[in-house]
């Protein structure tokens, strides 16, 4: 995987796993061992997609009426 910030390349496991705020998404936060940038990583593709700064939301909006679900209960 290649760091989008500094270009450092290594297997994805070498980028420290921080967390995934949405368990049902395949996006995680990992940290570049070289430049320490927090990266959004597509875990299925094994690719860093962006550096995550303050206020940025790699997971997109919350689920629910501002994102996904309506009231579908029977």
């Amino acid at each position, binding site marked *: 995987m290649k760091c989008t910030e500094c270009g450092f390349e290594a297997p994805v496991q070498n980028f420290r*796993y921080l967390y995934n705020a949405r368990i049902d998404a395949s996006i995680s936060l990992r940290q570049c061992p070289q430049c320490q940038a927090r990266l959004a990583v597509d*875990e299925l593709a094994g690719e860093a997609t962006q550096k995550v700064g303050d*206020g940025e939301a790699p997971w997109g909006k*919350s689920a629910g009426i501002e994102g996904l*679900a309506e*009231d579908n209960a029977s």
Partner: protein
Amino acid sequence: MAAEAAKDLSIQELEKEGQWWWIAEKKRSRRLDYLRKAVWKKGALGGNYAPGIKVDLEMPTLFTNMYNWWKYDPPMLRRAKALAHVLDNIGIFITDQAQLVGYFGSMPNTIAWRLDGASIVNEELYNEPGIMPEPEEESLKKVAELNSYWSGNTAVDKLARVLDPEDAVKFLSGAIGWGAPTSAYGYSGKDYEYIFAGRRGFLDIIEEIDANIEGAEDRTMGMPGPDILPLYERLQNWDAMKLILEAAIRYAGRYARLARTIAENFETDPKRKEELIRLAESCETVPAHAPQTFQQSLQYDHFIQIICRLEAHEGAWPARPDYYHWPMYDKDVNIEKNITGEEAMDLVGEFMIRAYEVGGFGPRWAREGLQGITGTWVWTLGGVNQDGSDACNDLTLAFLKAARLVRVSNPTFGFRWHPKVSDKIMREVFECIRHGLGYPSIRNDPLLIQNSMHWHGHPLEEARTWVHQACMSPCPTTKHGVQPMRMASATANCAKMVEYALHNGYDHVVQMQMGPRTGDARKYTDFEQLFSAWVQQMEWIMNTLVRTVNLGRFKDPEFYGRPFLSATYERAVESGLDAVSPVGERGNCWVTFFTWVENADSLAAVKKLVFDEKKYTMTQLMDALEANWEGCEKMRLDFVNGAPKWGNDDDYVDDLMIRCLREVARHSREMKCPCGNSWPALPENVSGNIHYASIVGALPNGRRLGDALYDGGISPGPGLDKNGPSAVLKSCGKIDHVGDGRAFLLNQRLSPTQMAGEKGYQLWKAYMRTWADLGLDHVQFNMVSDETLRAAQKDPEKYQEVIVRVAGYSAHFVDISRKTQDNIIQRTIQGI
């Protein structure tokens, strides 16, 4: 929005923008505005203290000096003398504009250090750069001296020597629970019925103690026999109680003198002079005598809370202010018209600010679990009187209005809803939620009264007095119901139940055999084998924690002792026993269940994908878990999205949740507290879901080591409740909220856009009707948009006053860690 720009907007424009904190600033009185801004924030920012916050070394030094001096005294008397020395000598201050006084540090920017509780907490002081008073080198030397004295002599050190060594090691590993089994860090209920309903000042109690001493001395001078032997110790305890009550009266007297000194020598504003004289009169009246005015009533309560906090690091603040201060409010505002509603509002607002000010030093694990605050000050409002009639009143309204003006994150409110609550009150409750405070939480009063009777046998009239003992658990305020010590140590990290069931009791994070060896999960051939292992691990975790807490409670009068608390408890004053003694208490224990819902979701995923559909083998699953799902993302997503999740009204997983809870409830009835009563479970999280993120390993619900756990109680995982709010309520409604546990926390997030205006209120009210009809005991709401929260992450300086509901408490959004912030943002916003 910049402060300058916001100040130019009208209240209507700010309402439209949802900028409630600017509205508060425009609406509150000048006094409240000053007091709110003058207070120091003591809650840790993520895990660190704010700049300028210093640990107070005056109280620990005074206490230790006198404790050492009286080394041959029995425990309660020795502590009473040491605490009296603190009350007589600690630095005191009066904040400008204040009408209420009392703090447990010697300066407004200090946090108190409870140094006789646990050496492992004391050692943590060295790990906190910046909190030592200047000159730092001198302070560190003083800390080292104090630590050297207390090392091996704290309550937990003493307890650790009598605990089973295996229990002690496993408990202290931090993997299965948290807290310290001593009243040094307990949550003590207050015997409000004795003090406030009984209209007693401390001089009245001293009179009762004197009579008891006289009666006991008559017997110890009389006919010899075994019945008089316990009296010798009780006589010393009564001496201790009397001594500390007298010291408390002197402590208030010091504030009175300070107020008069300022008024007579320094204050030039005649109005403020008058206020200072009134403050002095207040401190000359209470706590010596029962309060005569609303101001004195609040002051009396605050003195009791502060002195209790000088005696022990109290992690909660059980109180019911609209009920116990109502008689004086009614007298002053409505009947005699001594003060106006606005003047009363200033007192109510300040009463909240004085509580917000309180902060003690806590170790990092405690601060991470309670990010942004220093304890769970959940005050109880509403509810019923002892005869079952509606207890809501004008003071209930005043507290709800004051909360929106002062916007503190601590205290918060839990509102006891019942069918007779008026629309007027419900609108005020809703306004607090709409203003983004995250409180009040709503509690189902009739159901929780029934629950108190079911689990602990509290009589109906006593059960109706209940207050929140901590975040969630009801506890009566009566002679036999009030609870002196509920340490945070009967707190289970429940995700370990399923983790240990899968790993043969071995903990791969702390690398230790923790639970029983229940079998190699790779060899399981059907789901029942896994479930049986789960039951054994659940019982082991609960047993280990409860054994530790029971012993801590039983030995506490010997290892710690609460002279002041005892002096305010009717049963302790009557018996001469320490308030912490189980004698005379009915029992009101519970095991807090952190990280609970992961069990049902994980078990359901294994059942469906491994045993029902046979899509994966147990070996494949265990390999993936041991690799922390690394390299198994497709499979991980299958375990998340291909298996039913709690909160969607899906019987497959909901039935498993109920099955787990029934096993827990069975075991809760088997375990007994020192009073002989049961230990029901209470699922909730504070921010333990973040603290345990790096302690709980990968789970079959798709979670990896490092990910936050679900936000707690019976709340579904963030983003996993895909069928809307009714489905969430229906899942939660399948739980028997009386027989399955003590209480069940439910977080819900609503859209500020949808909840706007009268339509929003009516929608919410309809939602609450469904909630009540389905028999849920708790719900609390976040009503702040993604947009605002992301903006606050980006520019925290501009959003200092945005408040969110974390779990059983609220916090300023900018004070919690990024991981917690993201966890809150990803909670589903329900459209109702």
